[in-house]
C-alpha cells in the first residue's frame, strides 16, 4: 500500500498502551481461569504452580487495570453513543451478513462502543471484587458474607470480559485490515470508507 492510500488510526503510544493491556489481560485471564474450574487448573503450571498462580494473579489484574486506565482516558470521548449507532444496532443482522452499506459509522461503530463500555464496567467490578477477596492482604478485613458475593461478582464479570474479548479478537480477524491498525497504526483509505464512512469524511477534510 503506498503512503497516499493510508490513513493513520492509532498513534504509537496508543498501540503500545493497547498491547500492554492485551498482554496483561492474557496473563490475568489464564491465571484466573486456573482458579475458576479444575479443567483449567493446568494453566497454573505456566505461572509456576498453584501457589504462584494465586500470588501473581491479583498483581497481574491490578497492573491490567492501571494500564487500561490509559486506554480509557484515550478512547473515552470517542465512545459516546450517537444517533447513527441506533441505526447500526437496528441493522446488526446486515452487519453480520457483510452488508453494511448505507450505515454512516464514525470512528467506532456501536458494537465497538458497547464493547468499550463493557470493558470499563467489568474491569472496575473485577478490581473492586478482586481486592475484597485478595488473600492474605485484604480479605481478612471483610465479612465472609461479602467475600461470597465478591467471588461471584468476580467470576461473572471475568466471564463477561473474556467473552467480550473473544468477540473483539474475532471482529478484528473478520474485518480484514483491522489488525494492521493496531500493529502498524494505519488503515487503507478504502477500509475507512467502507467501515467508518463518517470518520473517513472527517479525516479527509
Amino acid at each position, binding site marked *: 500500500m503506498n503512503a497516499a*492510500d493510508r490513513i493513520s488510526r492509532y498513534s504509537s503510544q496508543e498501540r503500545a498502551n493497547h498491547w500492554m493491556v492485551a498482554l496483561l489481560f492474557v496473563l490475568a485471564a489464564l491465571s484466573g481461569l*486456573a*482458579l*475458576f*474450574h*479444575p*479443567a*483449567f*487448573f493446568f494453566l*497454573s503450571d505456566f505461572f509456576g*504452580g*498453584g*501457589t504462584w*498462580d*494465586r*500470588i501473581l494473579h491479583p498483581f497481574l489484574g491490578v497492573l491490567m487495570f492501571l494500564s487500561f486506565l490509559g486506554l480509557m482516558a484515550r478512547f473515552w470521548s470517542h465512545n459516546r453513543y450517537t444517533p447513527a449507532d441506533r441505526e447500526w444496532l437496528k441493522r446488526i443482522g446486515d452487519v*453480520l*451478513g*457483510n452488508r*453494511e452499506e448505507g450505515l454512516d459509522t464514525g470512528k467506532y461503530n456501536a458494537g465497538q462502543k458497547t464493547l468499550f463500555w463493557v470493558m470499563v464496567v467489568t474491569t472496575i467490578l473485577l478490581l473492586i471484587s478482586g481486592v475484597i*477477596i485478595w*488473600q*492474605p492482604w485484604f*480479605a*481478612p478485613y471483610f465479612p*465472609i*458474607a461479602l*467475600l*461470597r*458475593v465478591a*467471588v*461471584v461478582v468476580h*467470576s*461473572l464479570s471475568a*466471564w463477561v470480559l*473474556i*467473552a467480550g474479548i*473473544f*468477540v473483539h479478537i*474475532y471482529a478484528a*480477524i*473478520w*474485518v*480484514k*485490515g483491522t489488525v494492521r491498525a493496531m500493529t502498524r497504526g494505519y488503515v*487503507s*483509505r*478504502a*477500509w475507512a*470508507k*467502507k*467501515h467508518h464512512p463518517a470518520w473517513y469524511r472527517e479525516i*479527509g477534510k
Partner: protein
Amino acid sequence: MASQSLDIARRSATTTQPPNVRGDVPKVAKLIDISKCIGCKACQAACMEWNDYRDKVGTCNGTYNNPPDLDADQWTVMRFTEYEPEGGKLEWLIRKDGCMHCADPGCLKACPAPGAIVQYGNGIVDFHEEHCIGCGYCITGCPFDIPRLSKKDGKAYKCTLCSDRVAVGLEPACIKSCPTGALVFGTKDDMIHHAEGRIADLNSRGFAQAALYDPKGVGGTHVMYVLPHGDKPEIYDRLPKDPGISPWVSVWKGVTKPILGLGLGVIALGGFIHYVTKGPNEADDEDAKEDKHERR
C-alpha cells in the same frame, strides 16, 4: 493419610473418581455432649499436644474464651456463654467449637486446588496442606467459619478429626483426654444411638427441648452436639440453627462453572462458523476506486 488414601470419597477440584477401591467403609462421628462438658479445656490441650501446634500467647479478653478464636494454630476452642433463661436463672453454656466434618463440605466444594481438601470414606474432611495454594476460598465455602489461613506458611488449617489416629484404630486425642465423658467417638450410627439415650435422660431432667445437632442442610455432620436447648442452637455462641452452603457459593461453584466454561466454547465456535459461512468482511477494489474518485 496412609491406608486412608485408598478410601477417598471426594477430592477438591477433581472431576474424576478419587481412589475408592474398598467402597463403603463405616462412617465415624464425634459426639459432643454439651450437658456434660465442664469447660476444663483438656481437649484443647490434647489437640495441641497430639497435633503439635502452639498458638502464640495472647491476651485475656475478659472471658473464659482463651484463646478467643480459632486459628491456624488452634483447631478447637471452648466458647463460653452466660445464658439467662426465664425466671432469673443463669446457665453457663460451653461449646467446643471446631470443624463439623460436614457430609456435604462447603470448604471442599469451594477449593480450586486439586487434592488440597479430601473427604475420606469414613466421613472425615481433611486438608492436605501440601496441595493448598492459600487462596482462602474454603473460608468462603464453610458455613461454620472454621478454616484459618496461617500467617506463617499461607496454608489453610483446621481440625483433622485426628485422621492419622483414626486410620490406625485410635480415637481422636480430644476424646481420650475428656475427663467427664462429654466427648465420645465411634461409628455415626452408634453415636446417634448414644445421643438418643442422653436426650431421654435430659428430657427427664427438665430439658424438654434437648436434641441432637446433626444439621441436614450440610447433609449431616461427623461432629455432632447434644444440645440441652435443642430448639435454640444459636444461644450456644452463634451455632447456626439451619446451616447450609451459601446460595452464593452454590451459584459460583454449581451452575456458573460448567455454564460459563461452555459459554466461552460456544462463542469461539460461533465465531468460527460465522467466518466459514459469511466469510471475511473486506474492503475491495470497488471501495478503493470510490475513494480515488472522491479524493479527486
